[in-house]
């Protein structure tokens, strides 16, 4: 009995040792890959950063309003963000490569899927980025136009514009990623409908005011003594 | 001895204006004479003119350069005798040159025996040959012409103790044309000269013959009646003789002097001349086209007389104040150049002795409708002397050669009636007939050339004119037409090269032949005819349908 146990243990140990002896080189290889991957990713990050600086990417994103957006979200600068993104994508890629070396069945399939998924994710991120930029730009444009045209509910209008564009951008992102397409379609339709309803109500409420003013102007005008001069700028 | 008097000869004439005194002196007394003039008719003929207009050569105290006549039936002794005149006339006619003489109808000299008699007593028979008045307040609405010298049109006569009327200098009393005796006497004078053989008269100061209270005493109907009467007598007894009016008036006011072809044959176009100078300097055809548009049609037998310069100042009476100021500033910067309402300078100095401008101005003179007059000396580009008084600066001796007195006279230089021009640019050493005859590119040679071309076609004298109005306002372009002959004239008034598009569609299919070089220019098509022109350049094209 004891012998059997010892035997089994020895065998198990031997097996483990054999297994370890079998895996150890792979593990070391993996670690080396991960380590080298980190180094390469780090260099890539540096290269990306200086490249972006050279091409004045920050100016571009500033002009697009992205900088402001990131600032508002307490995120680092656009250049930093992109270079970090490059770093992480590269490193994760190397880590997965390393894991692949371990030759764990099952995992390999996921890893190859990750690499197939990578371009789509990149596209989705770009869409999201520009969607957010556009939302910020157009909502501000709407706000300014509304304020300067002396509309009362300018903020509401601007928010509606922003939400609409963001929702639209997200729906595109999800579609690109292929996640829960049906759900997203329904969600988008719901939000869009709600927004339209909101707009309709807003217009109705605002229009009431407008209609009143219009009628006043039409009917009560001659009683009004004070003619208004517009302030002439030039 | 007399040229055949053909009707309308004056329309195709080119007139050379000469002062006997200034042309050439044959007897060495320092003053030009008829004998000298007769000798130099060769030159006049070679130049290419076919008529001479002589300035007054009658006996006179010469206080107004002979326009103050003391005897209408004779020749001033300095210029020779009546016989000399007759022989000159016959030589001129032999060479095909007609002679136009000056006739001063309006006034005489105060030295004239008629005036001497008239002033001698209130009841002299010749008393009412002149215009007398007890006061100097009659005819108040009349302007004074010689603003620089005269204060009034009336002058006090201490002998007969009354005032006499004078439109010009106070030593030139006006004849009284209300008196039939005066009219008859003046016709007798004209008849005298016509019988000698002269071909026409330039009648001086015609608008002023008659005075009427309440008018400006110019261009009165009574004056026209007198002219019509004179013309009738001329036509009856001397058909073909020509009457030329000197009346410095606006074209519309001048028009009546042509009547229905029964008053003057010709009249000077005074307002055009300053505008040609002005257009040139403004580099703008507007003044020229404007005045010609305002010029009324004249009867077919009549003709305008055109000139660039003459023995008087370049008169600025017929321009607006803006124009006069401009002309003074541009052409008479030195106050000494101004006289009365005008500029007393010759052609070449006025144009800064610029050959191109002199040629352009002569080109326009020869091609605009009318009979051109060339003032003696301007054909060689003579200068003037603004430091001689009155208008004497443009009446200096003709410059024949670089020798003694410029070839004008053998007298001592001090004896000459006027110092010749001596300065290095315009003096007779530099500018004279002899030297210009030697080169084919001299101004004189060029003048001979252009006069030859002018004589080659009756279009210039008798043709109609139609202005083209190209959008480039520096280009003055017109078409002269007579019968089948059509000539296109294009002048560049600018000192810079110009391009111009002419609308010649009406003449489509014609080719252009440049008249100076006889070269062919492209055929006229549907497109605007495109020409480029050098500074102050002008073209004369004969249009030919081939």
């Amino acid at each position: 009995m004891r012998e059997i146990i010892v035997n089994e243990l020895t065998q198990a140990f031997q097996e483990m040792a054999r297994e370890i002896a079998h895996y150890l080189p792979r593990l070391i290889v993996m670690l080396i890959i991960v380590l080298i991957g980190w180094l390469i990713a780090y260099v890539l990050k540096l290269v990306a950063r200086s490249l972006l600086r050279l091409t004045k990417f920050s100016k571009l994103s500033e002009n697009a309003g992205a900088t402001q957006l990131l600032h508002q979200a307490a995120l680092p600068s656009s250049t930093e963000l992109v270079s970090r993104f490059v770093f992480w994508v590269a490193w994760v890629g190397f880590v997965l490569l390393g894991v692949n070396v371990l030759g764990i069945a099952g995992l390999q399939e996921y890893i190859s899927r990750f690499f197939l998924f990578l371009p789509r994710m990149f596209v989705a991120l770009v869409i999201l980025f520009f969607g957010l930029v556009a939302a910020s730009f157009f909502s501000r444009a709407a706000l300014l136009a509304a304020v300067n045209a002396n509309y009362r509910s300018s903020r509401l209008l601007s928010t509606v514009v922003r939400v609409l564009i963001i929702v639209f951008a997200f729906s595109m992102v999800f579609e690109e990623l292929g996640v829960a397409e049906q759900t997203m379609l329904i969600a988008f339709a719901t939000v869009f409908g709600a927004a339209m309803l909101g707009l309709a109500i807003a217009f109705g409420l605002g229009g009431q005011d407008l209609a009143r003013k219009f009628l006043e102007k039409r009917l009560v005008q001659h009683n009004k003594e004070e003619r208004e001069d517009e302030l002439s700028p030039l | 001895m007399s040229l055949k008097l053909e009707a309308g000869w004056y329309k195709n004439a080119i007139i050379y204006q000469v002062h006997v005194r200034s042309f050439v002196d044959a007897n060495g007394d320092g003053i030009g004479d008829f004998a000298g003039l007769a000798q130099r008719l060769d030159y006049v003929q070679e130049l290419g003119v076919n008529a001479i207009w002589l300035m007054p050569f009658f006996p006179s105290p010469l206080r107004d350069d002979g326009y103050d006549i003391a005897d209408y039936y004779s020749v001033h002794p300095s210029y020779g005798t009546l016989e000399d005149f007759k022989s000159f006339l016959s030589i001129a006619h032999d060479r095909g040159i007609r002679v136009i003489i000056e006739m001063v109808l309006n006034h005489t000299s105060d030295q004239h025996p008629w005036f001497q008699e008239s002033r001698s007593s209130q009841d002299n028979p010749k008393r009412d040959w002149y215009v007398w008045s007890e006061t100097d307040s009659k005819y108040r609405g009349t302007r004074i012409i010689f603003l620089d010298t005269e204060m009034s049109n009336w002058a006090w006569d201490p002998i007969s103790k009354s005032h006499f009327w004078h439109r010009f200098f106070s030593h030139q009393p006006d004849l009284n044309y209300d008196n039939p005796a005066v009219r008859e006497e003046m016709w007798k004078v004209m008849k005298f000269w016509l019988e000698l053989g002269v071909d026409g008269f330039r009648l001086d100061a015609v608008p002023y013959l008659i005075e009427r209270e309440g008018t400006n005493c110019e261009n009165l109907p009574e004056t026209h009646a007198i002219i019509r009467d004179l013309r009738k007598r001329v036509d009856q007894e001397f058909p073909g003789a020509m009457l030329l009016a000197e009346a410095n008036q606006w074209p519309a006011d001048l028009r009546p002097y042509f009547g229905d072809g029964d008053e003057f044959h010709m009249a000077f176009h005074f307002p055009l001349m300053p505008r040609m100078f002005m257009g040139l300097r403004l580099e703008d055809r507007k003044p020229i086209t404007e005045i010609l548009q305002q010029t009324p049609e004249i009867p077919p037998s009549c003709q305008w007389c055109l000139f660039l310069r003459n023995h008087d100042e370049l008169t600025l009476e017929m321009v607006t104040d803006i124009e006069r100021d401009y002309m003074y500033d541009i052409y008479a910067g030195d106050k000494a150049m101004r006289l009365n309402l005008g500029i007393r300078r010759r052609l070449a100095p006025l144009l800064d002795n610029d050959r191109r401008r002199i040629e352009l101005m002569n080109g326009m003179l020869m091609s605009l409708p009318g009979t051109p007059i060339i003032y003696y000396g301007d054909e060689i580009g003579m200068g003037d002397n603004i430091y001689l008084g009155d208008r004497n600066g443009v009446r200096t001796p003709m410059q024949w050669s670089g020798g003694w007195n410029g070839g004008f006279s053998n007298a001592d230089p001090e004896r000459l009636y006027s110092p010749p021009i001596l300065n290095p640019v315009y003096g007779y050493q530099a500018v004279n007939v002899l030297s210009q005859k030697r080169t084919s590119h001299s101004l004189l040679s060029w003048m001979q050339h252009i006069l030859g071309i002018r004589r080659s076609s009756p279009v210039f004298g008798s043709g109609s004119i139609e202005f083209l109005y190209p959008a480039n306002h520096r280009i003055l372009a017109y078409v002269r037409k007579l019968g089948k002959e059509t000539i296109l004239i294009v002048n560049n008034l600018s000192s810079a090269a110009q391009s111009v598009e002419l609308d010649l569609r009406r003449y489509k299919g014609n080719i252009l032949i440049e008249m100076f070089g006889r070269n062919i220019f492209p055929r006229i098509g549907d497109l605007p005819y495109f020409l480029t022109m050098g500074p102050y350049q002008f073209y004369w094209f004969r249009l030919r349908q081939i």
Partner: protein
Amino acid sequence: MAEETLLSDDFLRQLINVGEVDIVVGLATHNNAKTIEPVLGAIQSGALKCFPRERVAIINADGGSQDGTTELVAKASIDDLWRESKVYALRTLHSISVPYARTPDPSKALQTILAAADLLRAKACVLISPESTTIEPDWLQRLVRPVYHDNFDLVCPIYTRQKFEGALVRDLLYPATRSIYGYRIREPYGSEFAISGRLVTDFLGRGIGNEDWGKMGPEISITIMAVTAKYRVCQSFLGTKAPSPRGAHDVVSVMRRTAGALFSSLDSNFPVWSVISGSENVPTFGTATEVEPEGARINRRRLLEMFSTGVAQLEPVLRSILSSSSLSELQRIAALGINEFDYPAELWAKTIFEFVASYHKSIINRDHIIQALIPLYRGRSLTFLTENRNGSAQNLQHREESLCADFERLKPYLLEVWADRK
């Protein structure tokens, strides 16, 4: 070269016919048939009266008029067939028209006119607004004479105005231009001005009309170029300015063309303006004419409302542009009633300078920065109106001067916020 593309064959043919000129009068039009006739009449009689001997040409750059404006311009020509018994013209006066585009573009219109003036070798080029119905024949002389006879390169106008007119010029353009560029040019954005031939050539050569700020406000860009390149600038009193029938309703585009161009010009001209402190007078010709004051019928309550709604609604935008202290000051006065309302000059100057700096750094879209300024400008105008409601002309002048002094005093602040890397 810019002018090569600006000049069509037909325009070139017209220019050949015009030839070399002394003075070019430029008119940029677009459907101005209603007002252009008196303007052309005044130009014509001004030219005949004051410049009878000079060669004058009227050149009209038209942005696709459909109402016969160009025909009216062509009719103003004086040529040999021109008949007007009352007026005498020594010369031909060409009046030509060129369509530079189908839609109006002020920058292209100006460039077309200047290119023509350059080609015609004009000694002076004067721009006249086809809407200036109050124009007198004398204006031409007042604008051109300093260039033509006194060797100036730019003549800016000074108009006589009602109190409620020209608010933007008075409150923003004049003090800002003056403090930044150091010249006391009363109307840096005049609709009438004259420039010399050499400035025209230089302006075209530098291609400023093709740069962003030149395109934005072609008129102000000439003024700025003239002062930065040290050309000789002067001013001339003209007379009453006709209020533009269009400007009042389109504050946004007016703001873009004026303040936008001014702000935008600062980037490339930094070395010039950053070293200037204080301001110097420019020579001024003529004398001011008094204007009969009309009662201003401005609805002050509405102005206040527009200001305070603007401040409230634009809060997130203003927060990114302004410093927090300025913003909270603005929020404080936005809460005031109509009678207590006061937008102090110093705060206004700071506001403008912070806007300038944010514009320079493109904190947000530049056009948005310009638009965000509008409600604040309305607030400042309200204070100006309140201050000068019953004041005399002298009083008004005094206040203008003190506003400018505040701007000049705060210029170091501008340099500070300009350099600050927020």
